[in-house]
């Protein structure tokens, strides 16, 4: 019972300094067992550093990072973590089975269980057909699968995946997503990726890092509800000043561009105001030719950070 209450990952004021530069600064969060959490951030935001601290490859300069109660930089914690780095390190000269057996041995899997663990992970990662081939001869997709397999071979409680979708084709991405969502033993998964659409589809929760700090956290829906609505309207010929005067009470920003047969309006509202805007057009007797809402929450969040680093996150 006590174990179930222990967070899978607990970060308390974690900072990591490289010389005079803080790669991660005062980051705190908790991840519960079985959660799949995405770590988002721009290049240099501190994602990889954070992940490396999670797997014990780096030690925090200050603060505390615990994996199921054990300090992350200890062997007790490392035994419970599986890690797929951004470029999977594969010992090219070994066969897939030999490679996985070696990693299982290094990951402290007991000798009598190694064969079973390797067989299971070969099956779950669909590596059976290349099991005896040298890693060097594998395609990128297979190598990524082998990388994932080595992270899972010891059946860890926490799986950390750094850019797992990197360089995969759409088919492979879908396949990997499914694999992550149905990992054996329902482990906690932390992954980072640049593919925003994927993170929304894969993760239960998101952590957004910006310049080393935890800028936002929450579910995808929470981010979506936070976003400011952006609308694009196509209207027929109209007096654009009158339209602006009618829209102003409902819009944060208003931009109009003359196009053939009317105008294209780019609007930003504080909440969903489509009904009010359409009624205003009807009142002005202007034809509505088209209306589109842009609602990619993550991109919006990123853009808002880029424009305003002090913006508040979901929680």
């Amino acid at each position, binding site marked *: 019972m006590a174990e179930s209450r222990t967070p899978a990952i607990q970060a308390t004021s974690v*900072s990591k*300094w490289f*010389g*005079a*530069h*803080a*790669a991660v600064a005062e980051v705190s969060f908790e991840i519960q067992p079985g959660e799949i959490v995405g770590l988002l*951030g*721009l*290049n*240099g*935001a*501190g*994602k*990889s*550093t954070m992940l490396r601290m999670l797997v014990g490859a780096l030690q925090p*300069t*200050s603060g505390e990072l615990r994996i199921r109660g054990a300090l992350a930089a200890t062997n007790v914690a490392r035994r419970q973590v599986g890690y797929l780095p*951004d470029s999977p390190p594969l010992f090219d*000269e070994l066969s897939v089975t030999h490679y996985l057996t070696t990693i299982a041995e290094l990951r402290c899997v007991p000798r009598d269980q190694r064969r079973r663990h390797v067989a299971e992970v070969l099956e779950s990662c669909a590596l059976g057909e290349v099991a005896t*081939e*040298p890693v*060097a*001869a594998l*395609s990128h997709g297979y190598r990524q699968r082998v990388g994932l397999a080595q992270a899972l071979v010891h059946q860890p409680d926490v799986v950390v995946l750094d*850019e797992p979708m*990197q360089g995969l*084709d*759409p*088919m*492979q991405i*879908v396949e990997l997503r499914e694999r992550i969502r149905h990992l054996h033993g329902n482990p906690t998964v932390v992954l*980072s990726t*640049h*593919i*925003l*659409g994927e993170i929304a589809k894969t993760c239960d929760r998101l952590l957004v890092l910006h310049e080393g700090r935890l800028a936002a956290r929450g579910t995808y829906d929470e981010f979506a509800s936070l976003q400011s609505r952006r609308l*694009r309207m*196509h209207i027929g010929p109209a007096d654009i000043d009158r339209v602006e005067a009618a829209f102003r009470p409902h819009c944060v920003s208003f931009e109009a561009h003359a196009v053939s047969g009317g105008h294209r309006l780019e609007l930003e509202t504080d909440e969903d105001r489509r009904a009010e805007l359409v009624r205003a057009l009807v009142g002005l007797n202007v034809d509505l*030719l*088209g*209306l*589109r*809402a*842009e609602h*990619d929450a993550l*991109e919006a969040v*990123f853009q808002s950070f880029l424009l305003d680093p002090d913006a508040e996150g979901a929680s």
Partner: protein
Amino acid sequence: MIPRSHEAQQRMAAGISVAAVAVAALATYGLQAPTLARFAGWTVGVSAGAAWLAWWKARRPDRPTTATMPALQLVVVAGLLAHAASTDAGLDLLGVAPGHWLDRTLGFVAAAVLVVGSLGLVAAARAWYSIAHSPEAPLERVRYAGLRGGAAGLNLVAACALVAAAGLRDVKIDVSLLKVTEPSETTARLVADLPDDLDIRLFYPSRQDVYERVRPYFDRLADLNPRVHVERLEHALSPELTRQHRVPSDGYVLLSLDEDRAEQVEVGLDLAIARSRLRTLDGRVLEALSRLTQRTREVHLTTGHGERGQGGAEAASEERIDTFVRTLRRSHVAVRSLGLGRGLGSEIAPAVPLVVILGPRHAFSEEECSAVERYVASGGRVFAAFDEEMSPVGCLPAALGVGLVPGVLASERNHVSRSHDAADRVRILAKAASDHPVVAPLRRQRSAVLFDRANELRPLEAAVGATRRLVFPLRTEADTWHDLNGDLERGPDEAAAAATVLAVGTERTSGRRDGRIVVVGDGSIASDGSLTTRANFELVGASLQWLLEGHGNDRVIVGVTTSEEDRPVEHSPEGERLFFWATSFGGPLPLLLIGLWRSRRRRRARTLRKAGRSDTAAETAAETAAETAAETAAETAAETAAETAAETAAETAAVSGDVVSDSREEE
């Protein structure tokens, strides 16, 4: 003491640093300061300089301070104080006598604390420097770096202490064949019995290559006798001594019993030249020691009967007796010749200490035989080695009281192989069969003497009487037979039995000393070829020593010295070519082939796999494309349906698959 403002701290640190460096430079170049003082000066200068640099770099008014660096500087100051206390003035002040344990302890503690403090300080300063422009950066890093540097310093001190301890113990074991560091048993015996003080002075600069090689040898001599003292001197620094004993330069070893009695051994300074001298060092030291401690004796070698040693430098090793002569010379025994003109044909002077007859090929005349017999009867000493090569055998064996049994001794099993044919059967081994001093070393070492074409010796009953005693302390194995017909095969009339090949006799006389004889049934026993066998050398050495004993009052030491001759790597010109090609390319080739084989196997496997998978890959790609297209279309349709305008469907689809950045994150 420590100013509060940062600027003032900088100025103070800079001042300390400049002053310390100036003092260190002055100590090094201006004053004849002790080495440790210079070391301490530089240490403080450099570490204070490093600390100042860090401070200077970190000069910001909002910079928080850390106690780590001042604390480490205090450690360095403590080291300096310990060092000051270990100097003569410091010890005076503390009332500690130089050489007291506290003196040595203080010296060690000072060095250790200085190293630990300085390394810690430099590491902390480096960490401080790296975060100079980040006031928010945690200061634990400076503390951690300081501790890490200090710990590394501690490791270094421990390592130095261990190496120094091993150096003080200085255990050296020479396992080479040409043992330079080990005195021979003969030299050791001579040194161990020395009744007077012996000073051994090695004229060499310190840490000199040749000196490093010879010093352990003399240290061993000093271990054998507390009266032996070894020291190193530099020629230029000992003008009186070198003038008195005429030591020309460094590279010499002076052995002196007192101011007047001294001998030199030249070894040299150039290792390439000294190499050959080092091989004979033990023999030359023995020679010098013999000259110092023993008076000159003479050995008279008979001539005129085709004896060994007459063939010159080009003769075979079985004919030469250079080793024998050199061994005698090393024991301060001069070698003279004894022919007809010097009394061999009439009367050998009783004053002659020893007559040596080595493998004559022609018989002695009756006069010569009776001269030898009379000489022994009057207390003379004779070492004779002959076999049936002496043709005719003549009267000499009888004059010495032995009979020479015809037929070369041979053995089918107990022989030493050289040519791996029947000729080897006459190279037989004999072992000590009594405790007589002549064979005592052999018995002690359980070694066997090698005889080549030897004849058995038997006592002549007529010769043994009340005054003469004859023993045969060396015997061959029981399977030895007399090869009477020279076919090297044992015939039916050639019975096998243990044979005696050495006769040792004493002749009681009315004079001051007894006559002594040693007769060996092998004329080549003292030849260079024979003496390469250590047991043969021991036998000849012990025989000469026994024969020379009692002549005068002092002991004679004759024996094997550590002067084993090296030999060049030998092979024929054809062999040389083969040697070159076989070693240069024959050895590495298998390794190269293994590498190539592995590489080819891997490459071939990869090619096969790629070829095998290309069809599958094409199919997979087609399937993937179709599925992806279908999935994307479905998603797009769903999203588009939610919106109003038809044109936005395409844009939405594009945005949903958008990638913020494809570049890899690099942190």
